[in-house]
């Protein structure tokens, strides 16, 4: 059976500790497990660290890699900063939006892929670049980007 947010938080707390210092790390673990930070997890982190739910939510909403909405099984982050834009990231974005049938910031209806744009990924020597989950891809063209995304199950 799938773990509940409370279980994930409790197990993670055994590794990170239960002090207020652990709030972000607990949220990172929750986000990794569920792809987002569900409301129940906010309350669980609050209980376990002794910080208010408002504080925990404040942390969760600060960081762009933590999501408050459910997301797809795969997360595609395409860089939209200058060096990539100069090398055609807008065309890559258009192609990906067409391929997936969604606009950036959304998830395919089948829950397969979330498409986002992001700030510089530190791969500008090989622009345009994107991060698919934890894997970097660079030197993209609309075709190669779509091919990579098509391969995600």
């Amino acid at each position: 059976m799938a773990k509940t947010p409370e279980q994930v938080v409790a197990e993670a707390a055994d590794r990170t500790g239960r002090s207020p210092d652990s709030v972000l790390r607990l949220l990172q673990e929750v986000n990794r497990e569920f792809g987002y930070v569900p409301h129940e997890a906010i309350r669980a982190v609050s209980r376990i660290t002794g910080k208010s739910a408002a504080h925990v939510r404040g942390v969760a909403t600060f960081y762009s890699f933590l999501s408050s909405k459910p997301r797809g099984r795969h997360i595609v982050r395409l860089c939209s900063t200058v060096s990539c834009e100069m090398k055609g990231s807008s065309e890559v974005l258009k192609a990906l939006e067409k391929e997936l049938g969604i606009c950036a910031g959304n998830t395919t209806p089948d829950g397969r892929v979330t498409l986002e744009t992001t700030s510089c990924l530190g791969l500008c020597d090989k622009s345009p670049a994107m991060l698919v989950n934890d894997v970097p891809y660079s030197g993209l063209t609309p075709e190669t980007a779509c091919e990579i995304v098509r391969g995600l199950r």
Partner: protein
Amino acid sequence: MKREVLLSPDQPELGSALRRAMEMEPADIAFEVREAKLLGRGGAGFPAGVKWVLAGGASGAKKYVICNADEGEPGTFKDRVLIERYADRLLEGMAIAGYAIGSDEGIIYLRAEYPYLVPVIEEARSRMLSGGLLGKNLFGGRFSFDVEVRMGSGAYVCGEETALLESLEGRRGEPRNKPPYPVNSGYRGCPTIINNVETFITVPHIILNGAEWFRGLGEDGDAGTKLFSISGDVERPGVYELAMGSTIGELLDLAGAVDIQAVQVGGASGRTIRGDQLDRKLSFRDLPPGGSVIVFNGSRNMLEVLRNFSDFFVHESCGQCTPCREGNRQLRLAVGKILEGEFCCRRCLDSFFELASVMKDTSKCGFGQTSANCFVDIVGGFLDLPEDCSRVHEQNPCHEGR
């Protein structure tokens, strides 16, 4: 001038610098780094040795060595390349710092966008542990040191050192007031040094070759060499190592650039110069070289470039203080209006230049203090508008409310 030390194919044996350092008195290492005039490679250019001397002298049983691997400045990727190639040298540099200030614990704060570097660092750490270069009682002495990797979660401002500390302590990455400075009260209130990846990787070379050698590497009174990430309209984008104080032109020759309209040095918050200023120097006294150099050829619309950077600043401001949070929004709106042709002359833009100077003077951290730079440079230097238009300004819509 191209001059390779960090990227030299001829690398000293791993651990030899740590061994040499541990034959010295801890305070002497900090003095050596100070004498070398090694200025922090993360952008601000604070003398690393001064930081180390202060942290070494600060009272506290527990001290921390933190590596800033948050590299979020648009156009910067040198730290990624350094970690890919020299993660072990980074750990060695951190261990030397630990010995110098009396710390047994290092932390690498790695940006969320670099998850694939975690295994690279962990492998280097394992090698160092089994080689006796990290861990307990190094070289049979009393000094122990180990390093942990902690991840960011996608917030550019966390590269600011006190925001980084907030983030490590599990909170929103909002910069702190200074003082107190991290060297006295940093991570968990303990004396802490925070240095850039490149700064730490440079240290073993200084320990092995001496402060004087290092100072001699630079041009015109600048010390050492520096890595530059160059991207945009160049034939060979990548990381280049040059003597500090080299000119922009020398770097562009290496990377291959033609028809240069503009060069941005130091990232979005750095300075943007025109293509006829290539004799400007990459030096903390002229163009502070964070690491990023982006080249724009004649076909680029610099206002579109500015729009892209303005979006970045609006998105990444932590929102804690008004001049930065609201100022960046206003500048972004102004850029949109310039693009739509709503402003007829420079006089129309006066109030935005004033806003830019308010942001510089009154923002709480370096983010807000520098984020108007590209507006000032690009609108000031690249926009073709008459000084004052012939229209009667009182009747001009862009002067409403003045």
